[in-house]
């Protein structure tokens, strides 16, 4: 593409320096979002918890015959909340922190990856709440189930990072990409089987719904945590392949567009 030949000394990317940068970005993101207090953080948790209570109040009557509907709802809703928070923050990350790109030459992907830190902290809290809810309702998960759940979360995070890398550079060129994503998110809430059990839809639809990344993650998590039955090896390989594909495509798109990102700020 460009015929320019550029030679710079290696960035001062000693591990301690990069760790300091990452820590500073995470710390200040947390402070900006939650006013630097635990109360602020708890306040922000009220939104998904309220959603959960309202949806549970309404839909547990509709799906009263479904076993463990509430547990399935809480797992679906929390994973969905993480997906929405992290992708929304990731998409706008370079736009919001683009001013840093003009301050020095440094690896810009750090901005994108750290932008999902707030959502990750919330995810850890959700993880604990889900385990407590399972235990309280007498379905304390076996260690292998928790381990698999943890693996699904790693894959989910990889998908989110791949998505964020791609959309963060696109957003600099297409300034309404966030509005488009909002619409997709609204539709996606119903595409993913969050408030309804997947089984109410005809079988031949399922494979299309599984293409929407939150669907397999939510379904697999429910399978191991609530039902206690692990999906097949093939299903695991497909999900892992999907996550790896999204991550690598995201990295490729980012590497293509990021060198000119500063020109679009």
């Amino acid at each position, binding site marked *: 593409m*460009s*015929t*320019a*030949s*550029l*030679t*710079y*000394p290696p960035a*001062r990317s000693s591990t*301690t*320096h990069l760790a*300091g*940068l990452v*820590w*500073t*970005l995470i*710390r*200040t993101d947390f*402070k*900006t979002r939650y006013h630097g207090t635990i109360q602020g953080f708890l306040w922000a948790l009220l939104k998904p918890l309220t959603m959960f209570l309202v949806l549970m109040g309404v839909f547990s009557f509709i799906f009263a015959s479904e076993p463990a509907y509430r547990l399935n709802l809480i797992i679906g809703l929390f994973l969905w909340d993480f997906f929405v928070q992290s992708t929304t923050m990731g998409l706008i990350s370079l736009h919001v922190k683009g*001013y*840093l*790109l*003009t*301050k*020095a*030459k*440094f690896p810009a992907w750090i901005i994108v990856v750290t932008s999902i830190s707030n959502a990750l902290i919330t995810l850890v809290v959700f993880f604990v709440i889900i385990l407590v809810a399972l235990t309280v309702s007498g379905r304390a998960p076996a260690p292998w189930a928790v381990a698999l759940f943890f693996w699904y979360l790693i894959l989910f995070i990889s998908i989110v990072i791949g998505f964020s890398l791609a959309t963060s550079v696109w957003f600099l*060129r*297409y*300034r*309404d*990409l966030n509005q*488009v994503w909002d619409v997709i998110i609204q539709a996606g809430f119903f595409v993913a089987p969050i408030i309804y059990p997947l089984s109410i839809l005809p079988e031949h639809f399922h494979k299309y719904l599984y293409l929407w990344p939150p669907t397999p993650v939510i379904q697999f998590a429910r399978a191991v945590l609530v039902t206690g039955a692990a999906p097949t090896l093939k299903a695991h390989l497909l999900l892992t392949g999907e996550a790896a594909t999204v991550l690598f495509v995201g990295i490729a798109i980012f590497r293509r567009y990021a*060198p*000119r990102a*500063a*020109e679009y700020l």
Partner: protein
Amino acid sequence: MSIIEVEAVSKTFYVPSVRRDTIREHVLDLFRPRQADLLPILQSVSFAVQRGETVGIVGRNGSGKSTLLKIVAGIFRPDGGRVTVLGPITPILELGLGWNPALDAIDNIFIIGSVMGLSLREIRGAIDEILAFAELERFANLKLQHYSSGMGARLAYSIAFKAVREILILDEIFAVGDASFQERCKQRYSELRAAGHTVLIVSHDPLIITGFCDRALLLERGHIIMDDSAARVCDAYNDLLHSAQPHELVPAGS
């Protein structure tokens, strides 16, 4: 061996007559022909800077000075040519832009400082000094959204001066702050120069260029038309300004 070497660098901006910034515009205007101008900013620019040298760049507005600095700093990518830089660069460009307005001065110092390559320990040790240099000790815990633009720019200079590593790149330095702040900047800058840092300065002020620079480049319409001693380049720049003035600026009342 020169520490900065720029060879035949060119940069063209693609300027559509109607800019499309959104997906909506792209979709709605799908079948409308798209006109665009190619605006050459830099054309085959070459120069070299020796280690420890201070080089000024002068030129009229739009001559490509800032773009050239951004390319040397590695922030913009040239379309062609070769840039070789053999030391870490601290650019001070577009000051006053770029804060997290919801955070106070100290947290912003941490963010900018760590991006500029300081470790957390170095930043912690330098905070008092940075605030004192900017005369902002009293406002250390004030969010940046309540700062005046001058206060923000002073803070930006103070951080950057503290973070200087080997090569310093300055765009329109000494344009902010009151006389005493500018005096401190000049003093700090002289110290850096004495310590052997390499400096690249863009300025419109002939006093800055002749006072600080060993050498200067005159940039006109994307070409370097002169590479000589600072005094001679400033004279040529003055001539250029005065010869151009009758065509471009008609004084009121004439």
